[in-house]
């Protein structure tokens, strides 16, 4: 034992000795380890404490997805609360792909196994097999739907792949725009808890088809909907398609009509499928409703009266400037634009030039309707005496080197005064009147009535091509001097004079109120105040002459034939003026003249309520297309309906309140 203890002591002593020999190096490594630990600890603190927010954001962006759903658009009503544009349910059967993860995986394994068993060396790669699996599973579900609906629809592989790549979180639409019967069958046959579901979305609904198409406008697809004050702007966002106003009121009031989009934020797994329940959810809200000034009864009457012809009719409430009718032909069926416009429909609309809102988008020579302005300019400037005979109309007059003819009354009005010249629309009288008044005064009067300006109606694409020509204007625009013939043409609304039908409707409404400006509006306000602007400035006697002439037009003048037809009879006194403007055009390779048939009027004379302007475009070169024959019946039908309704008003249907 002693020997053993001695050896042990020796050995331990040597160990201690050796340990003591290496102590500095060990201490050094202590420091090294400490430094490493501090580095690690520091790094950990840096990442976990200082960079915590950054990592949390990265993780959030990586694991969360946002889905935006558009809100339904607001409705559009007519002035009596009748629905002009609404939303209809659009049912579709959709497949929630995120619920099929396990099924896709199983199908993938089965397909891979089958390929391997065949021993084929030309195997598809993993991505291709995955795509096949997706298509197979989706087709399986689509076959269930096919069985229920007795259809034979196949999955579009390209479309499905695109959906997987870009919109995995959104349900995949198998069949869109279901009929009510199909919808009912699916509701009854599909299990309640199934990846297959019937989904409803909103699409525009037009109860009156093509009525007021240009005014109401249409909507297009908006792939970039936005949502306010909804978190997750930095997240990957999937947007369901919304709508955007493309024309008419839909375009101008797009912001108001647009609903508030809703949204959902989901957590997703590493493969991109969503995990329920959502972290954040907000339901979409319908847009604001719009009550227009249109009267759909009058609108339909006007459109029916224009029929297959090219033209437009505008009716205004004289007192408020509210647009009761804004009819345009050719038009298009708004229902064909919803849920989307097919290429064929679009081409047809373009081919027929049916997109043009002629009432505001086309500038036309005003023809003899302009004589009212000439008369006012003459009376106001004192250049015309209502009782004075200034010409002896024998149908032709030489102005400069050219002969100017009287196109109305078979050309023999003989000695004629202002009132009769208006009633019979004597051109010779107004050629002379124009000479007396001068083009500058005529143009100034036109500008005073805002005929050279946009009306500012709440519609897009209002033209600015209106012209109230002066010698300076001609010199500037055409580099030519002004001829006496230009004045003669201007006095009868020909030559360089260009106006829109809406301008003329506002003009005649202003004349009805004995003022110079009417601001048209399409927004209906119950109990809207009466518009007022600068008075025309005619004496009572002068105004009486003017109205006498305009009333004479409808009784014995250029529009007299109309009152012979009982259908068109309006049991009120009406003031009107016809017009037939010519324009030289090349049509089908032939140079010739087409006519624009005009009629402007207001009624009743004693207390004006409604003003109408009608302009129809002749389609055949050299055709006897005249205001008195063609345009007047349209206006009279509108007036007849208006006064029928006034005497037998229909109950107001209150539009649904916007939530």
């Amino acid at each position, binding site marked *: 034992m002693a020997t053993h203890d001695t050896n042990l002591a020796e050995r331990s002593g040597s160990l201690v000795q050796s340990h003591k020999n290496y102590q500095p190096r060990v201490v050094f490594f202590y420091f090294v380890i400490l430094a490493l630990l501090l580095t690690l600890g520091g790094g950990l603190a840096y990442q976990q404490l200082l960079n915590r927010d950054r990592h949390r954001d990265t993780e959030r962006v990586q694991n969360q997805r946002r889905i935006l759903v558009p809100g*339904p658009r607001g409705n559009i009503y007519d002035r009596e609360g009748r629905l002009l544009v609404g939303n209809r349910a659009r049912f579709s059967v959709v497949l929630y792909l995120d619920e099929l993860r396990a099924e896709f995986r199983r199908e993938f394994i089965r397909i891979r196994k089958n390929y391997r068993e065949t021993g084929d060396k030309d195997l598809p790669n993993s991505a291709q097999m995955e795509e096949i699996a997706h298509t197979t599973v989706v087709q399986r579900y689509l076959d269930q739907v096919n069985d229920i609906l007795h259809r034979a629809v196949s999955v579009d592989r390209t479309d499905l792949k695109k959906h997987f790549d870009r919109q995995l979180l959104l349900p995949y639409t198998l069949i869109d725009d279901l009929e009510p019967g199909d919808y009912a*069958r699916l*509701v*009854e046959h599909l299990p*309640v*808890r199934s990846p297959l579901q019937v989904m*409803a979305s*909103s699409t525009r609904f037009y109860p009156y088809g093509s009525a007021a198409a240009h005014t109401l406008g249409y909507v297009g697809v908006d792939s970039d909907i936005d949502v306010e004050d909804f978190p997750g702007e930095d997240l990957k966002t999937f947007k369901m398609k919304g709508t955007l106003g493309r024309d008419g009121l839909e375009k101008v009031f797009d912001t108001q009509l647009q*609903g508030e989009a809703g949204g959902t934020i989901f957590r997703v797994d590493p493969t991109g499928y969503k995990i329920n329940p959502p972290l954040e959810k907000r339901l979409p809200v319908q847009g604001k409703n719009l009550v227009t000034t249109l009267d759909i009864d009058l609108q339909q009457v006007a459109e029916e009266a224009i029929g297959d012809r090219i033209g437009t009719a505008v009716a205004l409430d004289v007192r408020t400037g509210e647009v009761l009718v804004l009819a345009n032909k050719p038009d298009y069926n708004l229902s064909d634009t919803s849920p989307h416009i097919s290429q064929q429909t679009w081409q047809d609309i373009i081919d027929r030039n049916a997109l043009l809102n002629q009432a505001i988008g086309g500038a036309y020579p005003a023809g003899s309707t302009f004589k009212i302005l000439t008369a006012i300019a003459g009376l106001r400037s004192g250049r015309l005496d209502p009782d004075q005979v200034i010409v002896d109309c024998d149908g032709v007059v030489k102005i400069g080197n050219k002969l100017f003819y009287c196109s109305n009354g078979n050309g023999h009005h003989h000695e004629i005064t202002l009132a009769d010249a208006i009633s019979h629309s004597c051109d010779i009288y107004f050629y002379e009147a124009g000479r007396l008044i001068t083009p500058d005064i005529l143009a100034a009067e036109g500008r005073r009535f805002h005929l050279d300006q946009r009306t500012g109606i709440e519609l897009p694409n209002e033209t600015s091509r209106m012209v109230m020509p002066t010698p300076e204007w001609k010199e500037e625009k055409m580099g030519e001097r002004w001829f006496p013939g230009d004045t003669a043409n201007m006095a009868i609304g020909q030559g360089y004079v260009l106006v829109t039908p809406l301008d003329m409707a506002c003009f005649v409404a202003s004349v009805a109120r004995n003022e110079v400006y009417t601001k048209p509006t399409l927004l209906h306000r119950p109990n809207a105040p009466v518009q007022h602007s600068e008075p025309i400035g005619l004496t009572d006697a002068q105004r009486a002459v003017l109205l006498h002439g305009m009333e004479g037009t409808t009784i014995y003048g250029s529009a007299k034939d109309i009152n012979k037809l009982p259908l068109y009879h309006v049991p009120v006194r009406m003031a009107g003026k016809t017009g037939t403007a010519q324009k030289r055009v090349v049509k089908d390779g032939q140079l010739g003249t087409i006519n624009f048939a005009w009629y402007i009027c207001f009624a009743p004379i004693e207390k004006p309520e409604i003003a109408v302007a009608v302009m129809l475009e002749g389609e055949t070169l050299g055709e006897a297309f005249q205001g008195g024959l063609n345009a007047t019946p349209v206006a009279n039908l509108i007036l007849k309906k208006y006064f029928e309704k006034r005497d037998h008003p229909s109950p107001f249907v209150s539009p*649904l309140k916007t939530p």
Partner: protein
Amino acid sequence: MPPKRFDQARPFLTLIVIVIAWLVVPVVVKTFTRASFIELQAPITVAASYARDLQEYWTLRLHSNSELIEAGRDLARLTATYEYSVQQNATLQAEVARLEELLKLPAYANYRPEYARVVRRDFSGWWQQLTIRKGRNYGIPVGAPVIFSGGVVGRVSEVRAYTAVVELISNPGVRLASVIEGETQPISFQGGINATFDAPRGVIEFVPLSVFASAAMPKRLVTSGLGGVFPPGLSLGTVTKVEPSADGLFKSGEVQLDPRLSTLTEVTVLVPLNPE
């Protein structure tokens, strides 16, 4: 000591072995086992229902003659009323058939009525279902509509040899196409979340905005007939509330179902004569 420890653990081990064995057993075996269990259990349920019928029979036998005479008189009056209704229905059906022929409308599916006693009711919040005393032995198919004098009961969800399970329309798992009386647009009806013994309720969705109903002015909800399962015009319940949904596109609402659903003793299964 070690053998004793093993003895104590044996039940747990057995359980684990059974669970593992059950997990690896083929699906066919599992289905067969479950079906066998249900079919073996069925006679007990059916026997219990027969016993109840017998009990009711003897209860009725104990009624006095005057009570029976009164009941017989009431029944005769009721029968007379029904006879009149049957005649009216026959006239109306003939008129409908004439109009359908005139307008070349497709005929609705025809059904064979199969009357069945209710042998078991389950009105827990989860199931909301009935078991009836007829099954495959009477040719009852899965999905067949089930009705009673007050309207729709539900649809057959499971068919066994001698019994069948009917999911009630108060079950959230039942959905069908319906119309509000006087309207034309089909809407979706679905059973609601019903607590045990509560008055049964359902919900409707995709209701047009033009539809109004309230507890004061309720509207009747009937089957649309468009879904292909239920014939048209069968009563589902009363719409007591509709309110706009948040998307502004539709309304949704509540439907008060017939309270007799929880006390049914006899129902009629409509077996389609020409199933698709």
